[in-house]
């Protein structure tokens, strides 16, 4: 009995143990599947078909729908065309921007979230410590500070306030009603949830653009150059005006204004430039094109406008395309996901576009602190108090980091000591304060709001006065047959070369001295030559009374555009489209004859001679199938490297290389220059030596990497064109594709950089737009509209854009309708 009882108990215990063990294993399994390990998403949460990624797989057929949205004042009709491009018809402006926010969030929520997070220095919250350096950089360079100031500017104006708030409400309505299964796939992969949208996020997007287009700096490297080579060589190698140039405002244009007095150089600047004491390659070609031909050059008699802004291409597409209509506006174009209004586009009266102005709106100032507490700094012959701003950076899986940033009256001291500076920020000086126009209060959306409604040249000019940064070449055409271009933005009033080097922050003479008045920014209207254009080159010739920058983008694309437009007659949309795909190399035209002249065939091996035959037959186009382009490209880069590496490649000190333009001048006019000598060899090299050596080395490199000349040598194969997903996720981008173009030709597609939107607008009684961007309207990798426009873009074609005159206009291209009703 006793034993039996015991036996029974043991038997039960054994069963209990088995049961508990099984339960424990099950719970552990579920926990493991619900938890994020390292880079991998929580596997159960991600894969299960009820709420995981399978839910993001969309069908091709999206039917019409009707929704009730609280916050709307009236009814909004959104008509979707065959590419899922929305055409919004609202009964008032509030609802128009509300709907824009709502549908942009529907298509691009994750992109909006990650881009504003990145700008705000809040990536570590979701990505953990590996994002800490980038977050700290964004915080310390004052992205948050700048966005807060811009927000003030936007909210002061009652018009932009309504626009921003309505847009924000629209986004938030979408987020509030979003169930977990409908989260964009990236939220599921990275395991976090969307948060409320805030008006400041719209400002963050502007800061991000400023960072991309006007956030770089070579002043630290230039200051090092000055220490290494002295003022004479630096002035010679880094001139204030390029050798080859064809400026945006045609040479000889008269300045019909009385300029403000130009500030006097500070005494230390003069000392720096006359002192006898001996005290990274910039990637050229990132920029954009735009041009307009006057009616005199077009077949229709009305102007034609073209624009293709170049950016680092990513999926989801950088731009969001749409038509926006209310009783005050009817406009078509592209917007930034997360920001209201159309940035580049047209209505039935005007069209406009932008390219970047290389204005120097970012300067560094040396700061002298009183002591290590860094509470006071020397300025204007006295000690001044610094401001300290504490940045709380939240880090996934760790305690938050509290980072104190010192602000002088110039701006933030980005890195106060060596330990704060990560390796990838080689170009940022330590202990220096940053003055950046993107820190200032501004209201850029007003510019776009007004352009969207613009009717004529005067409206265009007025809109530009609201614009701060990043400075853009605003190009314009109207149905009144006016054409114009204006390098525009808030541009500091400076003495010549102010900010070419790091400045002494204690001298008031080194501060910015106000601004160039908006009506004195360079501009030209209806020039005699019958066209205006820009490709990031110098804004003006040397007669312009103000200093904008000492260097601009190379002239190559601008020159080619102007050469072609000069001879163009009876142009049509097709002529513009072909020009946007032009691969002709101005550099090859400028330097290839000289390179050939110095290349003595008797000194070449058999392989080199074969390559020489190819390049001799080359038509100077960077076409995908061209082998000559590959040889020339490698040759020029070797020539450039062999000319400057011996002096400028320095592991210990960051130096700025002379430009391609200066190198061209050296080759074409200074073949006896001392810079050709390789200082690491006892022999004295000449231009001829460098030309031959670089050609031999280039051909050898091609042979080593790609074997015998043939298909593998083709430019489309060698040039790695690709578009990555914004988070670099494999399988979510395009992978490598073969395409023509390169950095310094009109079709500036190289690596992951290139035309992010190509647009051509034919003005006339019925304005007609054509456009394409790489990718698609949807940001969802599981949508048919994620990259449905990619192939059209890759082939250099444009889609005719559907501009609906009225809400109920019939069109076979409309595939579905979404009605948004206000809640009853």
């Amino acid at each position, binding site marked *: 009995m006793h034993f039996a009882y015991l036996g029974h108990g043991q*038997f*039960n215990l054994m*069963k*209990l143990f*088995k*049961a508990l063990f*099984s*339960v424990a*294993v*099950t719970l552990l*399994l*579920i926990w493991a*599947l*619900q938890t994020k390990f390292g880079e991998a998403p929580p*596997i*159960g*949460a991600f*894969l*299960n*078909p*009820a*709420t*995981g*990624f*399978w*839910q*993001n*797989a*969309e*069908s*091709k*057929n999206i039917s019409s729908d009707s929704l009730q949205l609280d916050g709307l004042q009236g009814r909004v009709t959104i008509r979707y065309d065959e590419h899922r491009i929305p055409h919004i018809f609202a009964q008032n402006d509030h609802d128009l921007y509300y709907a824009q926010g709502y549908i942009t969030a529907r298509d691009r929520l994750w992109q909006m979230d990650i881009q504003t997070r990145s700008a705000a220095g809040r990536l570590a919250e979701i990505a953990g410590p590996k994002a800490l350096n980038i977050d700290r950089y964004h915080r310390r360079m004052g992205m948050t500070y700048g966005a807060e100031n811009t927000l003030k500017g936007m909210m002061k104006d009652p018009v932009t306030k309504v626009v921003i708030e309505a847009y924000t409400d629209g986004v938030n309505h979408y987020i509030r009603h979003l169930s977990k299964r409908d989260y964009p*796939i990236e939220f599921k992969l990275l395991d976090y949830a969307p948060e409320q949208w805030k008006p400041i996020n719209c400002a963050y997007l502007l800061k991000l653009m400023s960072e991309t287009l006007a956030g770089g700096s070579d002043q630290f490297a230039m200051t090092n150059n000055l220490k290494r080579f002295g003022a004479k060589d630096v002035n010679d190698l880094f001139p204030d005006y390029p050798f080859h140039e064809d400026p945006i405002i045609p040479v000889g244009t008269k300045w019909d204004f009385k300029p403000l007095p130009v500030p006097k150089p500070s005494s230390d600047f003069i000392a720096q430039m006359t002192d006898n004491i001996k005290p990274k390659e910039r990637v050229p070609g990132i920029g954009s094109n735009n041009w307009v031909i006057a009616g005199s050059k077009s077949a229709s008699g009305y102007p034609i406008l073209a624009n293709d802004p170049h950016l680092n291409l990513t999926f989801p597409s950088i731009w969001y395309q749409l038509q926006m209509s209310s009783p005050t506006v009817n406009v078509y174009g592209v917007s930034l996901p997360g920001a209201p209004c159309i940035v580049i586009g047209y209505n039935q009266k005007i069209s406009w576009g932008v390219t970047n102005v290389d204005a120097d709106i970012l300067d560094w100032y040396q700061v002298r602190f009183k002591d290590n507490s860094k509470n006071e700094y020397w300025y204007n012959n006295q000690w001044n108090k610094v401001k300290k701003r504490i940045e709380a950076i939240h880090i996934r899986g760790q305690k938050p980091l509290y980072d104190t940033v010192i602000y002088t009256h110039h701006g933030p001291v980005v890195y106060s000591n060596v330990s704060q500076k990560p390796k990838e920020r080689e170009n940022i000086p330590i202990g220096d304060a940053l003055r950046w126009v993107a820190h200032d209060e501004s209201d850029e959306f007003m510019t776009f709001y007004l352009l969207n409604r613009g009717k004529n040249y005067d409206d265009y000019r007025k809109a530009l006065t609201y614009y701060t940064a990043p400075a853009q070449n605003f190009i314009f055409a109207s149905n009144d047959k006016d054409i114009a271009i204006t390098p525009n933005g808030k541009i500091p009033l400076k003495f010549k070369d102010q900010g070419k080097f790091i400045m002494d922050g204690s001298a008031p003479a080194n501060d910015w001295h106000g601004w160039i008045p908006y009506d004195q920014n360079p501009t030209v209207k209806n020039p005699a030559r019958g066209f205006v254009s820009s490709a990031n080159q110098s804004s003006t010739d040397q007669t312009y009374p103000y200093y904008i920058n000492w260097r601009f983008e190379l002239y190559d694309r601008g020159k080619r555009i102007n050469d072609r437009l000069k001879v163009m007659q009876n142009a049509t949309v097709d002529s513009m489209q072909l020009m946007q795909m032009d691969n002709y190399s101005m550099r090859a035209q400028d330097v290839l004859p000289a390179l050939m002249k110095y290349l003595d065939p008797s000194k070449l091996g058999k392989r080199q001679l074969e390559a020489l035959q190819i390049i001799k037959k080359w038509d100077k186009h960077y076409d995908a199938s061209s082998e000559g382009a590959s040889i020339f490209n490698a040759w020029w880069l070797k020539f450039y490297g062999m000319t400057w590496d011996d002096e400028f490649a320095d592991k210990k000190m960051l130096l700025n290389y002379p430009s391609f333009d200066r190198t061209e001048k050296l080759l074409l006019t200074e073949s006896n220059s001392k810079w050709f000598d390789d200082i690491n060899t006892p022999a004295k090299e000449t231009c001829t030596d460098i030309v031959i050596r670089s050609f031999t080395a280039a051909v050898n490199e091609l042979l080593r990497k790609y074997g015998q000349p043939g298909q593998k040598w083709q430019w489309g194969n060698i040039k790695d064109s690709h578009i990555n997903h914004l988070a670099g*996720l*494999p*399988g*979510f981008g395009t992978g490598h594709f073969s395409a023509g173009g390169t950095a310094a030709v009109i079709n500036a597609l190289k690596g992951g950089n290139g035309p992010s939107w190509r647009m051509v607008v034919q003005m006339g009684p019925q304005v007609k737009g054509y456009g394409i961007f790489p990718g698609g309207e949807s940001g969802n*990798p*599981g949508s*048919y509209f994620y990259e449905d426009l990619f192939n059209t873009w890759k082939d250099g074609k444009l889609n005719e854009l559907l501009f609906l005159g009225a809400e109920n206009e019939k069109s076979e291209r409309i595939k579905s309708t979404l009605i948004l009703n206000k809640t009853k």
Partner: protein
Amino acid sequence: MTTFLTDQTKKINMLFLVIIILSFVSAYFLPWWVVAIVAFFAAFFIGKTSGQSFWSGFGAVFIVWTLLALFKSIPNDNMLAKRVAQLFQLPNWIWILLITALIGGLVSGMSALSGVLVKKAFKN
């Protein structure tokens, strides 16, 4: 012998069917791990042996998840599944489907097993 087999099959079918139906329904409005609770209680109340419970649970959710995934994926031409397969460096999207189904099956199977074992530990 024959009676015994038919009896067993019936019980497998019963448990299997209950889990299939409940996990199908719950998938539309409850978190994914609810299948574990479903399988656990189904086996607790009508599970018989360990093997029967595990395989009923496994098979039911394996099938349910495969169907649910295909329901979304086929109209999508499996485009997204292909991208995700590339992301995880798998040669083919079928692998993603298989892993999805296996995970669901395993969770459900283990839960059903736990359910029947707990029942056995408390009864008797």
